[in-house]
């Protein structure tokens, strides 16, 4: 059994809570307005300022931020979220309206201005997505200027927690931990590392899994037919391409896989990471193409060299028999690609980087050595040759991934945000919340 989202016409696009409350399929009739007003009064509201990269910027954190903001907004019809986007190759005009300001990565004053804008806004809390590379200065330290200036409660989601950070990298995470009211990590290992190697107090760390799309399980056959790959065992790796993906090792595994499954097809889905393209162009992809040619695998390895939209990506995942994440960096603490594969309930072969080691435990996937074409081949063959093993693995992966569906992850974040707004853990946020509380009581009409 494989998985796929149902076709768009099978999905009720206009029935989520926000749509029903704010417009509804039939709109609100005058006699219903009393109920509308009641809903406006009782439904919880929280205005969140997201600070991160944001689409159309092409990067995993941008996608993550958009998906998180979208999922949360579906539960909070009367909230007014805003985004402070980290500048990249995208002009401010290209962003959606929710993006109110763009921080210029290398301009320190820009970080101060962003903090002032949030301080003066209705935002009740800040959701900061942290990855060293998206901010300016050595190891992205300019983000500390932003945090020093900010007066509102902060949740910082850490997309990287290095096992062996440099002194400056460690200092930055410690400073973020001091100023943030909570740090979110996506695996337990991240929590352990923050406590042991960064001296972050445990009470500040919260584990919330990486969100995945809501996908229901259906047969893979239909999807394969629509993609023109019917009757072929499909192996795939997806995401923005860079050398850390280790795709060359999966390609080198293909001759052994083809001995057992002569019709197998390996799909490499995604374009080169824009950040990588800026300094080395398409040289990695060209090396991979040369390797395919050298091994005579042209009919068995296919590249889809573009940024895939979610629906298309899910379709490819649904058509996949074995997902492979042959990454070479042991320290990798999160992988959106692996999270999505779990969410789709796929059988997975992976190297044991930190995130994979944790989420693929208990039979949810097969771990193989780093840089090991033989290991990848052996793992992939064992899954393709054993339908029972495969079904067990898919079911376990799907059950695990289901808990991480965006609609559940959004509730986890909302829960944390509400808690922090009521009980902030930092001095700056406490002061802000006390002032807000005093103002609110002054606004409240006296009995």
């Amino acid at each position, binding site marked *: 059994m494989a998985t796929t989202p149902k076709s768009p016409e099978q999905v009720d696009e206009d029935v989520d809570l926000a749509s029903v409350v704010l417009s509804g399929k039939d709109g609100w009739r005058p006699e219903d307005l009393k109920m509308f007003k009641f809903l406006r009064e009782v439904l919880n509201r929280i205005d969140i300022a997201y600070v991160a990269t944001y689409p159309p910027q092409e990067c995993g954190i941008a996608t993550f931020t958009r998906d998180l903001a979208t999922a949360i907004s*579906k*539960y909070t019809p009367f909230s007014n979220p805003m985004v402070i986007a980290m500048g990249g190759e995208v002009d401010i005009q290209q962003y959606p309206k929710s993006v109110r300001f763009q921080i210029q990565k290398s301009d320190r004053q820009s970080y101060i201005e962003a903090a002032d804008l949030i301080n003066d806004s209705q935002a009740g809390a800040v959701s900061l997505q942290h990855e060293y590379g998206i901010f300016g200065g050595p190891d992205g330290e300019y983000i500390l200027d932003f945090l020093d200036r900010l007066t509102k409660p902060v949740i910082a989601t850490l997309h990287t927690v290095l096992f062996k950070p440099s002194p400056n990298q460690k200092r930055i995470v410690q400073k973020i931990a001091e100023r943030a009211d909570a740090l979110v990590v996506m695996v337990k290992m991240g929590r352990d590392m923050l406590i042991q190697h960064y001296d972050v107090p445990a009470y500040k760390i919260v584990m919330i899994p990486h969100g995945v799309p809501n996908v229901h399980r259906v047969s893979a056959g239909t999807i394969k037919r629509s993609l023109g790959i019917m009757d072929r065992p499909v192996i795939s790796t997806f995401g923005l391409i860079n050398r850390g993906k280790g795709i060359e090792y999966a390609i080198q595994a293909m001759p052994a896989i083809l001995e057992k499954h002569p019709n197998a097809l390996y799909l490499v889905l995604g374009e080169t990471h824009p950040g990588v393209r800026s300094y080395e162009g398409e040289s990695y992809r060209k090396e991979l193409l040369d390797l395919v040619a050298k091994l005579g695998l042209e009919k068995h390895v296919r590249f889809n060299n573009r940024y895939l939209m979610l629906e298309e990506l899910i379709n490819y995942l649904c058509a996949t028999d074995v997902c492979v994440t042959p990454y070479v960096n042991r320290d990798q603490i999160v992988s959106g690609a692996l999270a999505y594969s779990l969410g789709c309930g796929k059988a997975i072969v992976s190297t044991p980087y930190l995130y994979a080691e944790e989420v693929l435990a208990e039979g949810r996937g097969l771990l193989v050595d780093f840089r090991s074409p033989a290991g990848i081949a052996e793992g992939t063959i064992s899954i393709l040759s054993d339908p029972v093993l495969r079904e067990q693995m898919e079911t376990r992966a799907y059950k695990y991934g289901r808990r991480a569906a965006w609609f559940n992850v959004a509730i986890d974040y909302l*829960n944390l945000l509400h808690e922090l707004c009521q009980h902030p853990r930092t001095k700056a946020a406490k002061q802000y919340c006390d002032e807000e509380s005093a103002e609110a009581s002054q606004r409240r009409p006296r009995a």
Partner: protein
Amino acid sequence: METDLNLQVHKLDSIPVVKLSGDVDEFTCSKLREKIGTLLDEGEFRIVIGVEGVNYIDSSGLGTLVGGLRRVAEHDGGLAISGANQQIQKVLAITGLNKIFPVFDDDHAAVRSLKRKRARASGS
């Protein structure tokens, strides 16, 4: 793991109880909306939604419940929820919908509440 939504309706003390099992999400909520519509067409304006067998509910599921509440409210009816697990209770509390939907431990309590509401409305 069951993600499709199954619905079974039975009457408890003349009140229809819609027992749900599976997930109530963007793919499945139309089934619930249609079921509520059918009950309304049959003149049932007090309905219990039994969610004991529900694993997860997303914003589409919540939207469907609010839509259902609007429709029964037009007839001075009511919609109560029974058997919510911790996750669903958390979702209702986080959104504030727990202030709109009465949530009961079991179907009997939910039915009694709807009957009392009716009795109050008719002044008996």
